[in-house]
């Protein structure tokens, strides 16, 4: 396809070809003719031939799913992953609750409290994957890039509780420290040369 075809957005005129469909017959004789032509033209047998040919060719396209899996795209947005800070391995989530607020299917809930260091501690966090529509708003709104969508799309479980387990979503600590944790390089991510653009503030202490 050439570029012109994309630029010419008048889809009604281009790239279409018309199938020759005759009008419905209105007269009795016309109907008889149509029936006759349909009967003797052998269209039905063409259909039979096509499927039979495919059967003989045995050109199978099945992916035997649990044994074989199609690769997913790098931006595939499936089950959430909770990111950790590199090196320290602490959870990135600060408990701001923006994901909870923005979630349009109301499936995120979190519990926070004041911890002994006077910081906000996320004591519990759940995403009800049975309700989640994977719109990605939570990942987009997260100021800390803590919640992202991962490539895991298999949610089969015999208990609903398994759909909500926070520890399942959290990046394994060794992955975080070794730096193999996948970053979501999208909206809100730190842009290159960010430090040159930030004005430093003098601190007295």
């Amino acid at each position, binding site marked *: 396809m050439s570029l012109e075809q994309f630029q010419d957005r008048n889809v009604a005129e281009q790239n279409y070809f018309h199938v020759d469909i005759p009008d419905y017959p209105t007269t009795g004789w016309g109907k008889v003719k149509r029936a006759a032509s349909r009967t003797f033209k052998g269209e039905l047998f063409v259909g039979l031939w096509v499927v039979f040919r495919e059967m003989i060719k045995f050109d199978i396209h099945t992916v035997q799913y649990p044994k074989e899996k199609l690769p997913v795209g790098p931006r595939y947005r499936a089950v959430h992953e909770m990111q950790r800070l590199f090196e320290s391995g602490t959870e990135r989530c600060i*408990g701001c609750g923006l994901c*909870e607020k923005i979630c349009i299917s109301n499936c995120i809930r979190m519990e926070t409290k*004041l911890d002994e260091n006077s910081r906000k501690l996320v004591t519990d966090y759940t995403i009800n994957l049975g309700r989640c529509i994977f719109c990605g708003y939570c990942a987009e709104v997260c100021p800390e890039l803590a919640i992202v969508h991962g490539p895991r799309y298999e949610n089969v479980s015999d208990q609903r509780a398994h759909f909500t387990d926070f520890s399942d979503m959290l990046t394994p600590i060794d992955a975080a420290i070794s730096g193999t944790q996948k970053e979501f390089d999208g909206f809100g991510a730190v842009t290159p040369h960010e430090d040159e653009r930030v004005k430093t503030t003098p601190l007295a202490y």
Partner: protein
Amino acid sequence: MENNITITIDGKEIQTREGEFILNAARANNIFIPAICYLTRCSPTLACRICLVEADGKQVYACNAKAKDGMNITTTTENIETEKRAIMEVYDVNHPLECGVCDQSGECELQNYTLEVGVDSQSYSVPDTHKEAVDWGLIHYDPALCIVCERCTTVCKDMIGDAAIKTVPRGGDALNTDYKAQMPKDAYAMWNKLNKSLIGTADRSDMLDCTDCGECTAVCPVGALVSSDFQYASNAWEQKQVPATCAHCSAGCQISYDVKHTDIENSDEKIYRVKNEWNYVSLCGAGRYGYDFQNADAVKDETAFNAAIAAFKKADTIAFTSSITNEEAFILRRLKEERGYKLINNEAKVFKTFLDDYSKISGQQLYGADLKMVHASDFVVSIGSALKTDNPNARFAFNNSITMNKGAGLYFHPIKDPVIDGLSKNVMSINHAPLQEETALYLMLDLFADKENLPKDITKYLDSFHSKKMITIEETIKEEIIEKVMVKQLNKETGEEEEVEVEKKKMVPKKVSKEVEVDDNALLAQLGAPADFDEKLQKFLKKKEKFSLMVGPDLYTHPNSRNLARLVALVEKYTQFELVMIPALANTLGVSLICDLDEEVGEYTIGYNTKADFTLSALGDGDLDMPALNQQEGTLTSINKRVNPTNVALSYGGYVLNDIANALGLDAKYTIDYTKELGVVKGFSRESFDDLPNHYTNSGEEVRGYLLKRIGIRRSSNESVNELEDIAIQSDIVYLANPVLQFTAFTNASHQLHGEGGLYGSEAFMSKHALNAGDKVNVKTAQGEVRAVMIHDNKIDGEIAYLPTFDVNLNSEALFSGYRFSSASYTKV
């Protein structure tokens, strides 16, 4: 509205009152002028300077510039925009970027104005200082987040009266002086001030010494002052606001219960905090922190319910407290009509009797004024009420009128109250002996009554207290003296300096003793008024126009209460004072109007929220569970004679009184079906519950429920009152009252206010009886004896102690015969 004038704001003509601040006028007409530091009903502080407007071509601050007829105001000019932008940038300097976790996030005025003004870059900077967050018990202060708008200090001083917090030096680097030339004027001035101060306790101690109302946390525009309990518990936007009416005292403050699911597993709603419209209503600590008194986990226990029905069929008496809605009171009234129960509620009964006796002279079913009038008045008298604990809102009104209207006040109460004394030097406490409330009322008549019209025998009786006496007073007079001083003078001829003796006239104050004849008022002596009472009063009364009188529960329970009621009516009638009566409990007024109460108790009693043969209890400790007031919808009648709606904040699983009533033959689907039927009671309207509003308008108008109609009563021509009897309580005294933050067992049921009751005594009391805090004390009166733990209360003074009613384990009411004071003997165990 008086003094209607017309001003123009941004081309829009609006009507307002002469002398109204431009900001308030604009707000009342839905014109937006940003303001961070200003609080309606409090004095302008000019801390933020963001309310800049141009009035008739001159730049003024809208919060303290008064509107004049024909004024033309522009809210935005180029200069104002520059100033605003600079001010908001300054506020954002060093403000921690922790909106993600800040409790105020979502309802933060700094966030709002920063976005409104559109601050997207920062031109200013100053080295930050390290500021340690402090925990003041119920209140948490994080100075790092503080923008020193001074709203907290303002409200604490002008509204609450504690003046417990003030601005303190911040320390740290001064501003770069270059900024003075670079920056807009107001922004620099604001920053200069901001950068020097922080908020701290008034006595610079570590702990905040106040009545813990928490109003400072409510008014704080940022997350600097927050409730310790709420901190990091939930985000503001997750909360659902349930408009309600506070169920603790008779003030009937409008509040909203902020509810959200309890936690991840539990979807039941939980109250996380209480919010108020702080511009128009101030809450006390009980209202703010005592919210989770619900009867949780109540279920429909059918056997208990059947037992209740059986008990109701057997019973001939229902005893109850006034912590119920008007609708429940009405159900009780209907039950009395249908089945002839005796209704027992002593506390409401005495109030009712008092009101009836009052009505006979005043010709009105109800007292004339409300707390709004107290706010507006400039001379306030309180008799017979421990204001601080009986009705904190009455105290706020008292304080607000004195602070804002340059007012003055008298406070008659046997207990010396440092909080009242600390309000202002224009408040005089008269700590009379118990039972002397009558004398106080006579004094009121004597001092303020229109003697011409006052019945002759009363005038005569009052005159009998007066006598002439000679006293020696020290007077300061100014005397002219001539002084010789040496002055260095330039000799014009010589050009040299020389000392010259010059005579100078000077006025010097001199104290002179003088014998004068003065009027001696025996009533004052009987009340134990300070010696300089007359003088002070003269000073207090200067330029005063609006007078109000608040009378409290001590009067209703007084042995001579019927006489007191007549005296109160006479005071209202023959003086300029507007009268407010403080009902003791949340719905005492409503109950006393709706129910026809009895005195005699029958053989088998049902108790509603009070112990009896069969107990219905909203505290969950009775034979059948009842919903607490935060689990019910209905109306409550407040001190302001307003029928206020309250809504269900938390679900309730058990039976309600209406179920019992239905089982006994009444027929209403919901309790609130009776709201409409309240109309049959004098003063109430036939309005259905769902039509009752519950909010404030921008102009501060209270649109809540409806006001009770003023019903005229046939007045009797007999205005005679009894003369004073010589009664007094000898020996030590014990008072029946609650400490700050407590009203009933319901306040005590909340997790933040929960505590154990005991004998509360002042320092003086404890040293007199050689008691220490924590000692077990036997308190014995003629009626009985209880054992209580000695608790030190620094909010009272004088050699007096009191017993609370909030702790159900402490049967303190049994010690009193009705009057809230009793003679008692204390023995340490």
